[in-house]
């Protein structure tokens, strides 16, 4: 079976798209053009068509940004938006696959969370309202080191295919000890065995086989260029993952990376992107003794490309990624790198930079206008556009708020719309 290429449906989304001319913004392109003051952005057919001063487009409605910051739509991190509503309610959670009691070692890399994605999730407007327009939906470790496959989804609330190709998710280190017979060393042993099976180096149905036939096919894609996210924190584990990936021709993305600053040189040499949580500065586990607030800054300084994400409560409160970025900057990461870490870096890392992550001509017009510094906690998104269409700046939360802002007038609040 050949590569399954998934094409972002530019054509179908343009059916809903609008045209808009955003005038006089401070445009943070998150790209090579950096920040452009007093600049206009023209969107037609849902695509960014022009960026520059004094643009005009007859018949296109325009918005005066009044010099306020305009950024690409932000990356909401790696989580389960669209895959879960309420974390503690199992019936609403579809982000991991469990093989059942007592099964260890086996892996189902063919498990793919994408069919479970629900664009009508209440989490989507809540997250989008805060300026986030794309996310990595993740397959979490259920009962296997390989959680399965996820993908990059846009948060436009539409029935739309993922962008880019599938991402494989792997968990390494002490967090995954229970999945590898209580030793992290066995994680390499088991992955090695799975890779041998995927390459056809093992018989098809020997007793201790880890992969199903479909699993071998799926796994093979990630030995031939597909991206694999490794959740890993400890410096020595990151080194092991890098050399393991290199040996097996895998394309790793490191997520977690509490001690990544200690192995920055190797990360740079291997040109691997690291996603860290700048709020993670405590030795929360023995794998994170070296956690520190300036992890992102140190990595960036060493020439590593840094993405930012939120490790905890990454779905319902994905909007906290903006605060993560602000804290990274507050602890030494240059501001431009802070914005890139939640826009262009994730787009590059997951192979969707031809569609989102920057304000560049030809990209999808997922844009956010802010009332101030987008990395500050005391600012908010004034307007979010997706494919040039102004998104409603409402969510279940703002509507609950509005219901209770007013005093009751005769009838219970249940009558308020």
């Amino acid at each position: 079976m050949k590569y399954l290429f998934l094409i972002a449906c530019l054509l179908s989304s343009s059916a809903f798209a609008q045209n808009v001319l955003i005038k006089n913004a401070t445009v943070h392109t998150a790209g090579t053009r950096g920040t452009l003051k007093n600049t206009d952005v023209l969107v037609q057919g849902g695509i960014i068509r022009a960026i520059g001063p004094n643009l005009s487009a007859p018949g296109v409605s325009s918005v005066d940004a009044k010099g306020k910051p305009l950024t690409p739509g932000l990356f909401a991190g790696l989580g389960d938006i669209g895959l879960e509503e309420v974390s503690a309610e199992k019936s609403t959670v579809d982000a991991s696959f469990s093989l059942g009691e007592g099964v260890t070692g086996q892996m189902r890399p063919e498990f793919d969370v994408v069919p479970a994605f629900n664009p009508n999730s209440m989490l989507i407007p809540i997250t989008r309202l805060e300026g986030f327009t794309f996310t990595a939906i993740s397959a979490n470790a259920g009962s296997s080191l390989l959680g399965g496959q996820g993908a990059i989804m846009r948060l436009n609330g539409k029935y739309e295919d993922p962008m880019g190709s599938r991402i494989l998710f792997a968990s390494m280190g002490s967090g995954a000890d229970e999945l590898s017979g209580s030793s992290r060393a066995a994680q390499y042993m088991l992955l090695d065995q799975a890779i041998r099976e995927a390459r056809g180096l093992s018989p098809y149905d020997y007793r201790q086989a880890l992969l199903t036939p479909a699993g071998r096919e799926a796994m093979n894609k990630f030995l031939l260029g597909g991206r694999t996210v490794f959740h890993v924190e400890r410096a020595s584990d990151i080194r092991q993952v890098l050399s393991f990936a290199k040996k097996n021709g895998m394309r790793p993305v490191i997520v977690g990376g509490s001690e990544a600053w200690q192995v920055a040189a190797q990360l740079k040499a291997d040109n691997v992107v690291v996603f860290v949580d700048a709020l993670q500065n405590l030795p929360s586990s023995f794998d994170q003794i070296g956690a520190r607030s300036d992890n992102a800054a140190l990595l960036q300084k060493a020439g590593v490309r840094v993405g930012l994400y939120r490790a905890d409560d990454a779905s319902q409160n994905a909007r906290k990624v903006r605060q993560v970025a602000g804290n990274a900057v507050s602890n030494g990461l240059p501001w431009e790198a802070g914005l890139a870490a939640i826009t262009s870096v994730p787009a590059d890392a997951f192979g969707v930079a031809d569609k989102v992550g920057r304000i560049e001509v030809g990209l999808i017009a997922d844009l956010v206008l802010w009332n101030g510094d987008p990395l500050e906690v005391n600012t908010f998104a004034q307007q979010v556009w997706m494919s040039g269409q102004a998104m409603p700046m409402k969510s279940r939360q703002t509507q609950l708020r509005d219901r209770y802002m007013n005093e009751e007038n005769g009838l219970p609040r249940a009558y308020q719309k």
Partner: protein
Amino acid sequence: MRKSCLIAALAMLSFSVAAVGKSKNPEPPATLANDPYPSTYQRIGSAPVLIRNATVLTGTGERLDNSDVLMREGTIVAVGKNLDASGNTSIVDGTGKWVTPGIIDDHSHLGVYPSPGVSAHEDGNELTNPTTANVWAEHSIWPQDQGFATALAGGVTSLLILPGSGNLIGGRGVVVKNVYGSSYQNMKFPGAPHSLKMACGENPKRVYGSKGSSPSTRMGNVAGYRSAFIEAKGYMKSWDKYNTGGKEKGDEPTQDLRLETLAAVMSGEIKVQIHCYRADEMMLMMDLAKEFNFKIASFHHAVEAYKIAQPLADAGICASMWADWWGFKMEALDGIQENISMVDRKKNSCAIVHSDSAEGVQRLNQEAAKVIARSNALGMNDSPENAMRWLSINPAKAMGIDKVTGSLEAGKMADVVLWNGTPFSVYAKAEKVYIDGALLFDINNKNIQPTSDFMVGQGVNP
């Protein structure tokens, strides 16, 4: 120095006497005055400090521009303009900087769920019985939690360390000063009342329901609280009888750790902190408090407090809330980002920003900043001076320490933070943190940055 120590000691004494004096009858044993595990906290000596020409948020809702704060012998001597300092006073230039009271977190599990989160240190929930009023969180505190150091860097000077929410009645919480010591007693806030931790809703019924025991429903929860308090009333009665009956030898009731805590709640000596998310359950707990004649200090998490902001204000009950955490379970589903400001805008309300998190406690100023942004977007215009109350005097009130700390007022403990600018920004840094007048964190001096014993010797390789 000695003189003002004496004044401070007297202030403490009258403070604790006042707390004890509230209970009208002879009490069961183990009152505040008779604590078998007393505070051994001693303030660290320091020369007087004068912070000059800063923007001062008093914590009581006031903002004083270009003002000074003078601390001496552990106490705030004065807040105002052009204060004089004696010879040995260390002068700090506050130009362009902001000064606030030390931040107070009224919901912390530092020490009882410390970093690293290893199984040996999971000491926050005694999940062997739904009513463990007999346990004291302070007996679980590991004083080497690195989280105390990172909280200090965030400007936190006092914390209420609570048991977790797995039980209906989880046990006693303790107020600590954020100063490292070899034992928790070195940190224990002198004269502060104990708190009782109770929990509504999903957690207790999940924990015990999954074991096949009671409670497994919300109605089971309520039956559990009521039974416990009914039992404690009987215990109080037996002590009253003994105390008023001439204390006949041999008649002394047997001390019961569980019931004496609940009795002290009903006598008003112990503050009540209730983990409760939903509006309907908070209303129910207010009726429980009426039934057993106790006062609720604060509802914690309270993600639906905005739905009952008026009844909370009318009852004088605080709400300790997050800026934006929601949705991880059903009872947290209706969380909104305006919760804190909607509670705060009622007259006589008591809105608090709390953490319940080793991450959140480091950035309570940022949590408050998020609230300000949201409320300003609606035209409610929350000012920094108003928001500061959520982080200082209001939590102090819920914890019963507002007479001695929680605001920058003469005579109060010199728990003070100097910020590099407005605290309500992601770029804000606590530059200097003073506890009882002693400089215990300085962002520019590695020697004034504590680390726990656990961090010693980590990473000594070349």
